[in-house]
Structure formats: C-alpha cells, structure tokens
C-alpha cells in the first residue's frame, strides 16, 4: 500500500482552491441574487467540504467501507432535515389544525 495517497502538490492546489472558493462565496454574498444567494453560498460550501473530504481526508484513496461511513452521517442528516422541514414547509398547506 502506498503510504502517501496524496502528494504535497495536490494538497497545495486543493488549499489554493479552497481559498479561491472562500473569496467567491464572500463575493457572491454581495450580489443581490434573491433566493439564489443561499443556494450559491451552500453550493460553494458543499464543494469546499467535498474537496476537504476527498483530498485532505484521503477518501479518494480509501477503502469502500470507509467511503460508506464517510457518506453515512450526511445521508442520515439528510433524513433528519428532510422530514423535519417537511413539517414546517407543509404547515401552510392545510390550516394549522
């Protein structure tokens, strides 16, 4: 097994990418894009998180089981958010009885 799954050069490029994305997200916040603002902010955040997970945390070079557990938490968080927000989003559908 290769003990160094990611090279220094890649780390540096990812780091630069993260800083660029940080600048992008701060910049985008000053554009008045209405409902798109939070969407842009969260999309950039997700890209940053994925970069960190894939490269800094070596998931790109990891075993299948590690990848599954890397996804598991986020998947379950999705369940929590989806069904909780489901309540708040649909409270206006019927009169709140």
């Amino acid at each position, binding site marked *: 097994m290769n003990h160094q799954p990611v090279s220094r050069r890649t780390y540096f490029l990812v780091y630069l990418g993260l800083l660029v994305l940080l600048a992008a997200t701060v910049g985008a916040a000053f554009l008045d894009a209405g409902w798109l603002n939070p969407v842009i902010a969260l999309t950039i955040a997700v890209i940053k998180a994925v970069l960190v997970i894939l490269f800094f945390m070596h998931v790109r070079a990891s075993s299948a089981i590690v990848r599954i557990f890397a996804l598991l938490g986020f998947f379950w968080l999705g369940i929590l958010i989806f069904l909780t927000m489901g309540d708040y989003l649909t409270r206006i559908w*019927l*009169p*709140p*009885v």
Partner: protein
Amino acid sequence: MPGFPDIPGLPQLPLFPQQASTVAGQVDFIFAAEIALGLFFTTIVVILIIYFGIRYRRGARVDRSNPPDTNLKVELSWMLGLLVLGMGSFLGAASVYFNINTPPADALDIYVVGQQWMWKAQHPEGRREINELHVPVNVPVRLTMISQDVIHSFFIPAFRLKYDVIPGRYTNLWFEATRPGEYHLFCAEYCGTNHSRMIGKVVVMEQSDYQAWLSSGTAAEVPLSDAGEQLFSQLGCSGCHTGEPNATAPDLAGIFGQPRPLESGENVIADESYIRESILFPSEKIVAGYAPIMPTYEGRITEEQLLELVAYIQSLGAGAEGQQ
C-alpha cells in the same frame, strides 16, 4: 367511512367509553377493525407455536426430515400481505384524521386558553368559564386554543379527540357533539405538579338550553368583539389603524381570512395566527406599502386579550367588503 354501530347501552361495555361526537363512532370502528386484525394474527401465531411445541417436542418420534431452510415465495407473500393490510389500515385512519383536521366553515367559534393548571374558555357572546366548556349539541364547534405557559393537551375521551395546546401558537380542534350530557375533560400532556388536577367537564346541551345559558351571564361578560374594540382604543391601536385611506397603518376592516400581500412579495392569509403574530412581532410580516413602525405588544398583553382583539378584527370582516 362507515360508522361503528351505535349500540344502546354501549357505555356499560368496559372497552368503549361513551360515544358523544360524530367521529367517536368512526374511531371506534377503526379500533374494532384493528382488534380483529390483531386477534387474527395473534391467534395464528399462538396456535402454531403451541401445535409445533407439542408435535415437535424433544423426544417425540415424528418426521423431522428435510426441514425447510428458506423460502422466497413464502417470505414475499407474507410481506406483501402485510403491506396491503397495513396500507388499508393507514388509509382508513388517515381519512378520519383529515376529517378531524378540517373544521367546517360554519363552525361555532370558542376560544380556549390553557395555563398551569386550568382551562379557560371564552365564548364570542361573552360568557367565560373555567374548567368547564358548555357547547350545543349537533352543532360543529371549533376551538381555537393557546397556552399561556407550557404545553397542555385538550382531551375529551367521549369525543375521541385531543389536540395539544401550545404556547406561542394557535391550534384548533373541532367537533360536533351528538349526545347531551357531561363528559370528562382532561389535560393529556404532562404540564407539572397539578397535571392530574387540570381536569374539568364538557357540558353538551340542547341548543335552546345553550342559548339560555349564553345569555345568563353577568353584565361584565360583554361579547368578545366588544371587549376587543375597547382594548383596540385603550392600547392605542386605533390611533394608526384609523381605517382612513392615507393612514400610516393598514385598514383592518374586512381583512380577516383574506390573503394579504407582504413587502417580501409573498401573500399570507390573515387568520388568527397571523393577527396574533402581527401584534407581538409586528416587523416580521409587513403588509406591502407600509413602514415597519408598529411597536411590539409582546409582554404587554395576555393571551385572553389577544383573543379578544382577534375576535374584534374578525367581527370587522363580517361585512360584504370582506369578499372583495
């Protein structure tokens, strides 16, 4: 949903409490149906366990050759059967639930405030009562409920109905009583020391008796909307909500139940919750064309007074202009 047969003398049956509302029979029907379903499965499992337990007891000389290991068809068929039965029960119970959750438009309004540890009810005509609720028989009644402190739950077993009474937000419960009499009223959500003493009774009366009861109140018990109108000027609301075309605050006549355009471009229905929220947190949902200048009344007004204001604004909407 067919109703559960209304057997005379049912109250004597230990399993079922009195049925005194239109949904009670429906709920009892679902209950009976699920008991039947449950008995069916329990009997099968119990009989099989006893039968196998005796027939295949250790030492018994029986044919034990080739015990089945697994059988996809058997597994799939009982899964599918359960799915069908489950979805059937789900749909039956859900249809009654949506009925419970959709009050008819012509329902009689009564306001309920829960607090540690009592129930307070206000009738639009002015009668107020504590730990009792008088309602007419055969008339749909809609309760608008709110709590002054912690979560309570308004529970009338004879009606098979309950709904939580939550601080900070109105909840509703509607019913149509079918049988005059006195029924238990319980608080079903644990609310502290005297939770088990937060009980009372619901008195279902003939409609004529109810009218007589309504008008037998003291002179202090003015109709809610009148009390609300008084508050409206006392608190200074009428200074801005003058009703004139160029006033600094919107005209409130005829808005009740109507969609209101907001600054943010959305629409919101001016229901009880919206009116309450606008009095307590005025700047959150500003009606388009107005400045956020209204002060908050949070902490300066009780839940009962809020309900009086709601009733007052509702009474303004009674005219035809509300339909425009």
